[in-house]
């Protein structure tokens, strides 16, 4: 298989790729951190605060890689960019909702991250494979925790099943945004830096569908030619800067204090 040399891949493609990942983690981490002090029980407050710190920490890892590529400071990227310059998927922008929505979103995101990072392990770009290897170590625990909650809440009581099903109905079309095809990625795929989104989406569905069905949660998918096919409309747009109003509010909050003295030390 032909591999373009990395020198040929435009900087813009690589940078966009890393920025998408960084923004996803930052915005989700911010949403996760909204549970600190408000979780259903003390022990889960403590546990979920770790998830929040990990996701924000992961975004910092990607922003640091972005800094190596572009010189842009991570704090400047996160705390000074305008909200419509963010490239996170819309999925992570939505409010935290009830705990069911949070658990489902976290699970969908954790499996997506696992699938993406695993596919980067044999990336022809060393900085990608090294970063992926590093982050995968923490991802294993995230998956364990979100899956534990998902599988327990999925069909525990009438109320939990109802809430979890509503959460899945809402989150599933939104989660497609995690795999939104991005034009600049075609040269990354040709060069073996990354794998195509369709392949990753399939891998993700193969994990997520049986997992949810095992606790009686329904998904709008059908099986065709041995593959799962979603039957709902995907909530795309985030990668192209088409965001929900929720992101504007979120970024306003995120940057409020920093912008009081953007050149100062905090």
């Amino acid at each position, binding site marked *: 298989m032909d591999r373009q040399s990395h020198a040929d891949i435009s900087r813009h493609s690589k940078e966009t790729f890393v920025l998408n990942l960084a923004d996803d983690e930052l915005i989700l981490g*911010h949403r996760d*951190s*909204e549970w*600190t*002090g*408000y*979780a*259903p*029980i*003390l*022990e*889960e*407050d*403590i546990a979920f*605060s*770790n998830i*929040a*710190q990990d996701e*924000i*920490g992961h975004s*910092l890892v990607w922003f640091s890689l972005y800094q190596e590529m572009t010189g842009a400071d*991570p*704090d400047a990227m*996160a*705390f000074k960019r305008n909200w419509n310059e963010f490239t996170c998927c819309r999925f992570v922008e939505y409010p935290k909702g*009830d*705990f069911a929505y949070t658990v489902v979103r976290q699970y969908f995101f954790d499996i997506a991250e696992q699938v993406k990072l695993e596919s980067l392990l044999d990336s022809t770009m060393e900085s990608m494979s090294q970063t992926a290897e590093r982050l995968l170590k923490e991802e294993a625990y995230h998956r364990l925790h979100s899956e534990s909650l998902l*599988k*327990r*809440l999925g069909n*525990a*009581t009438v*109320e*939990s099943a109802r*809430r979890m099903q509503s959460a899945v109905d809402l989150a599933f079309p939104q989660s497609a945004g995690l795999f939104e095809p991005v034009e600049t990625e075609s040269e990354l795929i040709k060069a073996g830096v990354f794998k195509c989104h369709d392949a990753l989406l399939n891998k993700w569905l193969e994990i997520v569908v049986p997992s949810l069905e095992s606790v009686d949660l329904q998904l709008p998918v059908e099986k065709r030619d041995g593959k799962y096919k979603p039957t709902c409309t995907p909530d795309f747009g985030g990668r192209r800067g088409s965001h929900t109003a929720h992101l504007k509010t*979120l970024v306003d*909050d*995120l940057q*409020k*204090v*920093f912008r*009081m*003295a953007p050149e*100062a*030390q*905090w």
Partner: protein
Amino acid sequence: MAERTTEQKLTEFEARVARGEKIEPGDWMPDEYRKNLIRMIGQHAHSEIVGQLPEGKWIPYAPGFRRKLTLIAKVQDEAGHGQLLYRAAETLGKSRESMIEELLAGKAKYANVFNYPTPTWADVGIIGWLVDTSAVINQTMLAQSSYGPYARAMKRICYEESFHIKQGYDSVVALAKGTPEQRQMVQDAINRWWFPTLMMSGPPDSLSQHTAQAMKWRIKTKSNEQVRQEFVDHIVPQIRALGLDVPDSDCQFDQQTGHYRYSQPDWEELKRVVNGDGPCNKERLDIRRKAHEEGRWVREALAAQSNKVD
């Protein structure tokens, strides 16, 4: 084995405490001791949980990655401390459910200092620095508590609080050395938090009904005034070294005593705020009540599930 009388048991208990030995769960203890401890440890636990809110409110707004991560970790630690303390109280025979119910029903007390608002980012650093310093002085003393589970919980808590103080101080230094707006913000925060922090050590012992008994049974080993003095002596020079000040012109070093003189806080204000009339009492309990109610289905579902998954 011959049964000892209550008097004999009390004598042995007090001798054990006087020797510096720990009382453990299951040991005979006077009812007053048990009740006192449940009240104290419970209040301490409630303080940590309610205390998550004044700072937790600023997590979405924390300026920069480092401040954001540090603040999440700090508020997480407070949940962790609450968890340790509720557990210590449970060893005395009181369930966590009942303690939480009492807190949410407005029937339990917690550290009054958490009834004050945090209107600016600087408040977060000041709480981490001032409030936690005062807490640590108190808590280091409580780590010598005669009750084993409480002493063990306190050692762990003190260890973690020492990071909180450093984190708070670091944030305050950045503001003190920053723009005029940043400096003003942090001085305003000190002005608002100084007296509430002084109140944390408790009313002068002449006004406190609990101190004498608590000291005899080594639930406390220092008086409220001693703890407050220690705090003032420690923190005032540090505040002034940053070019900031306390809102008390009478706060001056006395060469003769080797201590700082300072004005007493308004103890009538303490009474009002403790009894529910503070600026944030209602708001904070409402938030906690809402979180508790909204989480009910989760607790019930996971409990129901415990029979299925093992």
